[in-house]
């Protein structure tokens, strides 16, 4: 007897304990690592998602904005539940539920009907449209579709409907974020540039960042400076909203008027060079004022640079309160340096975060040993390598570009580290390597409140010290022989 595949019928034999043990040992070997790194077609446990997820995050960062997925409804459910799980917060978004007939006739009908219903039910101030695979492949013309929707009176004249093409077969969530922010700013600022006008404000672009604490930290810093600002795609209230018995569909976000007027800003600063690359390139062409790009301010040096830039851009001295904070961060770092000094870390995640982790670890005398990005670029690789090369503690570190978490697993078991920094998806690799995983990226599905704890700024540096050091001390207490179990550490 044979079947559809032409294979012969066999008895059920299961997997023997011997085979299991043999292969379990084998996958930890150097030989396996080489085979694993020789992979060319198969991706296993990538540390990145697809573009529309990032687009949705960006859309949530604007006042009264309904993210709208043009494409299959399943996509929308996936993005939403990912955000729900990470933030433990609602993530209201709709899709226009394209199905087979969309493949044949295009998605205009779905888009129009979807807009009509969504506007009626959810009364947004803006609808941010982005695409999943299907319309990208069939070539839907969103410019035309939306124009037609306006023409048909489905979309009110004054309702902004920016749209972004966010093909999943290109880039990652980070590029989708960039595309959506760009589309929103382009739409909102259209015709709003006024020669000679200056809002006096800073436009701050955080880039893809799923830590609401970071946004609050940026705002606190700017307020300490007394610098008026527009924080672009501010998700902090959207995804860290109060529980007071009232569900709010749109609890926060950048004011649309502020976003519109951002084109007349005094300065625009991006802190996510990789996650706002296209947006920033466009801003440099279009926006008034000064434009600057800095790395995400993780660690003292990068925070110093951020504050210096603010000071320089706005001619204001760094406030005393932040100087004191700096001193407290340095204090925490000097007091704790011996607990991290020489510790080896594997770190993975998005480009902007990676640069920050590496910088902070080097400041503490720790070694970023395996530095892995599952969707990176030559530019990123060079920048990471330069960071490593600039410190004696980085000499042993190696950058792995466009490698996944199954590669990481091989690295961890053949060339061990003391700990891993990354998102929840690394937990299996970390467990196999018997080292702790510090959950600092996105998404975090298995711990609470991580998105509320800022990593940026001086307070972020203190938080990093606290989390990393105390875990190592926990481990010491939990694993040491009784005779080394002591009162002090």
């Amino acid at each position, binding site marked *: 007897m044979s*079947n559809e*595949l*032409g*294979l012969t*019928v*066999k*008895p*059920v034999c*299961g997997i023997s304990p011997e*085979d*299991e043990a043999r292969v379990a040992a084998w*996958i930890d070997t150097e030989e396996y690592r080489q085979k694993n790194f020789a992979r060319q*077609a*198969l*991706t*296993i*446990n990538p540390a990145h*998602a*697809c573009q529309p997820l990032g687009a949705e995050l960006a859309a949530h960062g604007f006042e009264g904005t309904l993210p709208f997925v043009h*494409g*299959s*409804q*399943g996509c929308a459910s*996936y993005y939403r539940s990912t955000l*729900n799980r990470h933030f*433990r*917060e*609602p*993530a209201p978004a*709709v*899709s*226009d*539920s394209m*199905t*087979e007939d*969309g*493949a044949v006739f295009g998605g205009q009908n*779905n888009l129009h*009907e*979807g807009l009509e*219903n*969504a*506007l*009626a*039910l959810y009364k947004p101030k803006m609808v941010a449209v982005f695409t999943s*695979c*299907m319309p990208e*492949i069939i070539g839907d013309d969103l410019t035309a579709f939306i124009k037609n929707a306006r023409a048909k009176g489905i979309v009110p004249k004054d309702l902004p409907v920016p749209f972004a093409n966010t*093909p*999943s*077969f*290109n880039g990652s969530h980070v590029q989708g974020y960039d595309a959506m922010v760009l589309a929103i700013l382009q739409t909102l600022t259209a015709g709003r540039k006024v020669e000679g006008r200056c809002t006096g404000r800073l436009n701050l672009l955080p880039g893809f960042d799923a830590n609401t604490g970071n946004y609050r930290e940026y705002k606190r810093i700017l307020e300490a400076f007394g610098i008026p600002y527009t924080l672009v795609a501010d998700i902090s209230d959207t995804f860290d909203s109060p*529980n*007071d*018995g*009232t569900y709010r569909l749109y609890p926060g976000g950048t004011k649309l008027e502020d976003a519109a007027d951002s084109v007349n800003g005094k300065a625009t600063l991006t802190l996510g060079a990789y996650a706002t690359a296209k947006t920033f390139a466009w801003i440099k062409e279009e926006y008034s004022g000064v434009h600057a790009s800095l790395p995400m301010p993780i660690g003292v040096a990068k925070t110093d640079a951020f504050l210096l830039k603010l000071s320089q851009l706005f001619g204001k001295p760094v406030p005393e309160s932040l100087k004191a904070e700096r001193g407290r961060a340095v204090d925490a770092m000097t007091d704790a340096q011996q607990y991290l000094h020489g510790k080896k870390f594997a770190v993975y995640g998005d480009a902007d975060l990676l640069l920050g982790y590496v910088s902070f670890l080097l400041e503490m005398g720790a070694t970023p040993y395996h530095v892995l990005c599952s969707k990176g670029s030559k530019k990123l690789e060079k920048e990471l390598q330069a960071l490593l090369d600039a410190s004696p503690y980085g000499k042993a570190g190696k950058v792995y570009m466009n490698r996944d978490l*199954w590669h990481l697993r091989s690295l961890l078991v053949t060339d061990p580290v003391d700990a891993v920094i990354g998102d929840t*998806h690394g937990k299996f690799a970390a467990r*196999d390597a018997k080292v702790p995983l510090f959950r600092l990226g996105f998404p975090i*599905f298995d711990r609470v409140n991580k998105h509320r704890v800022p990593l940026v700024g001086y307070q972020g540096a203190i938080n990093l010290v606290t989390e990393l050091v105390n875990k190592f001390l926990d481990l010491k207490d939990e694993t040491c022989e009784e005779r080394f179990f002591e009162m002090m550490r």
Partner: protein
Amino acid sequence: MSQVKKVEGITRESTQSMIDRALEAYPEKGKKKRAPHLAPNDQALGKACVKSNRKTVPGVMSARGCAYAGAKGVVWGPIRDMVHVSHGPVGCGWYSWGTRRNLVSGRNGVSNFSMQFTSDFQEKDIVYGGDKKLAQLLTEAKELFPLAKGISVLSECPVGLIGDDINAVAKKMSKELDLPVVPCNCEGFRGVSQSLGHHISNDTIRDYIIETREFAEPAGPYDIALIGDYNIGGDVWSVKSLLESCGLNVKATWTGDGEMERIAATHQVKLNVIHCYRSMNYMCKVMEEKHGIPWIELNFFGPTKIKQSLRALAERFDDEIKERVEAVIAEWEPKMKAIVDEYRPRLEGKKVMLYVGGLRPRHTVGAYEDLGMTVVGSGYEFAHSDDYDRTSPEMPDATVIYDDASEYELEQFVHELKPDLVASGIKEKYVFQKMGLPFRQMHSWDYSGPYHGYEGFSVFARDIDLAVNSPTWKLVKSPF
């Protein structure tokens, strides 16, 4: 059929007018489309009162997933000893990676493969097609995971749209690798919900898996398969040990903690026991037609339904099984009483609203009732008419039934019905919690479980209590 259940203050009229109010906000076309999906239950009639399995109305914030989700997340994903390749762009596999809580035995990457395998399509794969890449990755998978019993290839949207032929690749590579490579054309745009994904996957099992293996040991009179249990939080382990304590041999579990080989040999069992009818009735019917295997639909939630189910099951066997079943029931009943005695006083009279998928909107009703609670609304993301037929007798009369509800509708119903607990999914959880409403995720057991079987009921009862009676709800209203 049990007597007609009534809920104080709920009449057919009150429910219908609640529905009408909820529909007011819709534009005409949307209203017209949605209206048939919302209705008061007619318990005595015992038939579906709503339309179902239709296209989702665009733009309404549906909770539905897609065919790929039904195939990867539900049917294929839980088979632990196969590599499941999400074929296409990176996202679909990434979102469905570890997020359904279908637990597995074995060692990760060695003897279970609950990781994310993807062909991670790039622009060039769209332009030039992905078949060659697929062939290569299958080879790589076989080399890196030598103990895998097979590989499933789960198509994402682009695959079907660009005209790749994964079936041909699968056939070719199966031979080349001497390994079952199962192509599953479950592109997300197909059908109206995850339901079609279940169906397509069932068909693929029929076409590529079943009958390709035979059990090594001789068949016995008590050989059964457990179908439609996905081992969420360990459900399968709870039910399997219960069935085995009744003297039955559970030869295969579909597909929770599932093994490809055992699934492939299921055509040899004597009875198929199905829990989630929606996702797996297709294969039961196939095995009934083709192999003459009868099947029985059971409910393992809560002591009342479990007892009924075990006795119904025993009816399909001889006296020995009947006696063992009674002994098992007698052993568990006092434990169940103790649980009910502990929690019922704290839960008596509390109202629940359900909105889930699969079997839960009807199957869990009895378990809530065991705790003294009343279900005042229920509905499915992706049910068919036969699901609603089965739901009607379980739900109290005149309570609201909603199919493919939008979040807007759910909110309206909750505002009017003021339930003490909402039991739905992750996308709904925080919406209702923000309203100060106790909530349990009923897809994932909210990271708890198991909920199936007697063992599961103790967990369920505790979880419902901790949700409903958490002192945190008292903090929600601010004194200022």
